[in-house]
């Protein structure tokens, strides 16, 4: 069993790592793509995952750690099965993002940055996702959801299993 504490890519994934490394003039260019792959595979980027990925790039784990900690899309602890990220930047703020954030917090019973106890949803507030024409908006896993109202938010959250 491979997981974030015992990370190991499959032979097919290792071939993909080598393909990605070959796309760049220096293989280190593939670090972000491989970290995305690692997170999709192992759930989050644990210290063990950092060490494993460092080995694939002939880097020190510290080099991978400083990259992982720099970017908001890499999770350093387990996240929920779904990630709900509400934009609270200026255009969404103008269109009541604050109300949406408050509503989701009450609905899920958690604060931004937390995960529901059943592991279903991680709730975040984030900076501009560049879909300001649909403000207030949020990202739910891979997709953007805009023109949010409390009712629409409820329907979306209810659909997440």
């Amino acid at each position, binding site marked *: 069993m491979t997981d974030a504490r015992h990370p190991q890519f499959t032979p097919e994934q290792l071939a993909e790592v080598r393909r990605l490394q070959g796309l760049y003039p220096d293989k280190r260019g593939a670090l972000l793509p491989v970290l995305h792959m690692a997170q999709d595979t192992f759930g989050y980027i644990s210290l063990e995952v950092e060490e494993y990925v460092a080995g694939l790039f002939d880097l020190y784990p510290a080099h991978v750690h400083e990259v992982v900690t720099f970017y908001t899309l890499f999770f350093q602890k387990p996240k929920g099965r779904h990630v709900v990220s509400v934009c609270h930047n200026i255009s969404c*703020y103008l269109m009541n993002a604050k109300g949406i954030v408050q509503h989701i917090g009450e609905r899920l019973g958690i604060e931004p940055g937390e995960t529901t106890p059943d592991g279903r949803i991680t709730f975040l507030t984030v900076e501009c996702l560049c879909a300001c024409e649909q403000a207030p908006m949020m990202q739910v896993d891979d997709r953007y959801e805009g023109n949010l109202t409390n009712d629409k938010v409820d329907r979306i959250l209810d659909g997440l299993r």
Partner: protein
Amino acid sequence: MAEMIFTRNFHLADSHTLARYKETGGYTALTKAFRMEPAALAEEVKKSNLRGLGGAAFPTGMKWGFIPKGSTAPRYLVINADEGEPGTFKDRYLMERDPHGLIEGMIIAARAIGSHLGFVYIRGEYVQPWRVLDGAVREAYAAGLLGKNILGSGADFDIVLHRGAGAYICGEETGLLSSLEGKKGWPKIKPPFPAVKGAFGNPTIVNNVETIMAVPHIVNRGAEWFAGLGTKGQGGTRVYSVSGHVEKPGIVEAPVTVTLRQLIYDHCGGIRGGRKLKGVVPGGSSAAILTPDEIDIPMDADGPKSKGSMIGSAGIIVMDETVSIPEALMVVSRFYAHESCGQCTPCRESTGWIYKMTRRIVEGKGRKEDLDTILDVAKRGAGTTICAFYDGAVGPYISYIEKYRSEFEDLIRSNAHA
């Protein structure tokens, strides 16, 4: 009907497909470009008055000319698709609805600068644009438009799509290159400029998505035509992103001669609910805010500058009379505090402290000296950092306070009596 360039096919459901792109004249500029000398291509772009549409408005043809003559090192073309400036969303539409326009522009630009390898750096949150562009790149390879010996021309060019991982600073071109190299997105000291020593130590040209998408049209219809659409300082049309309190928020393509007033009132239906305009940010959140009497300006590279602001990414954020400017500044300050990469002390420290001060003003704990402290810190730090991030943060700090000072003072005074 005004000329549509970037958005001309947006009404078609299959505008992202190779078949539709070709049917509407796509890839004809490429055939023409392969018959032109690289230097002639660059010259044509220079004459077109195309300016960078990502934020800095630098003349594109001139930028291409910065690669050292006679350099034999590999050269890279890097597309900045790390759209992140608050209030901006045009590149998302462009990549989702016209990905082949970007690919064709890249192949032509690569010929002009002598590059055989291009990267598109897409922000990590843009999963859907990435999927559409990935599909288009695959189509282009299958059709012989990318790879070796493109269309029998002898030209080789490959495109690698690269996903970011969430960091506004990677939209800054040298921060982007650090990130592309697999590092944290720390901007680099210039010089050397990327055209001399860029990605992986080699000459690199970084251009915005929309900028490169103008290139096929310039090649097809000529520099004079493109220049003639705009003003003396800038050619063409561009895609404005309009958000906030307008009746119809969204993207608007218009010649750069269009005024800010026209964009708000003619193209976007005016202020929501018939309310009054209080302020408008013309070029993404880093641009200084404009008051209602400052909106009769052309939205080219020079118009907003004449009012002490900037065109930036052409992200227009409209605020009606119900908005609390101090609270809006707190929201914007939180963003800069969160996104400062931490490399330069003035930026790292000032963005954090200014956010704390704006927050305490909004929370009713403001002190009367706070406003002058913020202005002092903002003005001293400007121009002292490696990249333009902090100068961008200073735009709102100074303009919100100087133009709406009494609103801040009223808030501080009323709290003092409470």
